[in-house]
């Protein structure tokens, strides 16, 4: 083998070792997580979503107890921080963040259904709604819904609704 070829191979190995050819692999389809369906009671999407996520992690708390603790009748709803506080009161660790769709996919892939705030409204009309993600794939984004199989939302629509609400999500993790 000539000296030039040998030098070329050495250079290639050196560059490869520097990780210049490495890149993050796409997350791909994320498997479905099973969450209890949401209650259809008015203004209760937050408590019902939190109840389902806590139950997913092994803590069963009735929705009405959560609602009595954090629901505001005058504001007709709850805040993400309310859900975080209640989860901490049950002994869980919480992380409230602003992120990207990749963050959500990673959370689902890690078995941690993120609770997201969506704005289902149009234009100046706001329609806030809480839900938890149970899967992400080419067919769309799987969200907790009122049915047993949840709701499938097209990814562009989900991203738009999530961005309107500030791209926030709440991760709940059992304390180690």
């Amino acid at each position, binding site marked *: 083998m000539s000296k030039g070829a040998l030098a070329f191979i050495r250079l290639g190995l050196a560059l490869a070792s520097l990780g210049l050819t490495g890149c993050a692999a796409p997350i791909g389809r994320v498997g479905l997580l099973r969450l209890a369906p949401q209650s259809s009671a008015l203004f209760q999407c937050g408590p019902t979503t939190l109840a389902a996520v806590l139950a997913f992690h092994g803590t069963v708390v009735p929705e009405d107890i959560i609602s009595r603790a954090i629901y505001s009748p005058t504001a007709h709803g709850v*805040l993400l921080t309310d859900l975080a506080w209640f989860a901490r009161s049950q002994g869980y660790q919480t992380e409230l963040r602003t992120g990207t769709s990749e963050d959500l996919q990673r959370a689902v892939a890690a078995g941690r259904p993120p609770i997201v705030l969506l704005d289902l409204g149009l234009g100046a009309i706001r329609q806030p709604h809480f839900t938890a993600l149970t899967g992400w794939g080419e067919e769309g984004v799987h969200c907790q819904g009122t049915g047993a199989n949840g709701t499938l939302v097209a990814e562009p629509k989900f991203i738009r609704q999530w961005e309107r609400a500030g791209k*926030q999500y709440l991760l709940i993790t059992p304390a180690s």
Partner: protein
Amino acid sequence: MKSLASAHRLPSWIRSTAALLACVFGFHALAPSAQAGPISSFDMLAGSARTADLNTIQQALEHKVVKQRMGELGFTAGEIQLRLAHATDAELHQLATQSETMMAGGVIGLVISLLVIVLLVLLVMRVSATPVSAVDSRIARTA
């Protein structure tokens, strides 16, 4: 002249090593030197006190922004106090930076949306229900 002649007789590896060392020291001489040294305790405390003051001011402002926004959303004073007490510093910061998108999750917006749609439909029906003869008579009077 004699030294130059003797240099040519040195082995090549010595010459190349010498050239490399000369280059290295040359770059070292050209590179700006960083000054490092101990600072007085007074300067250190003054810097950390300023940082602490700035953090306090930032938290107070965030508190105010979040409190105002919660009031706009309909939370009572007692509910606001409770929420501010329960929120972590990071959550308070998050609420403050996201104050414009802060919403209490529920379906109240759906109710408002339906009301707006109903009102629009009623308005359209009212406008379209205006009889043609009444319009013609108004035009005739003004002609």
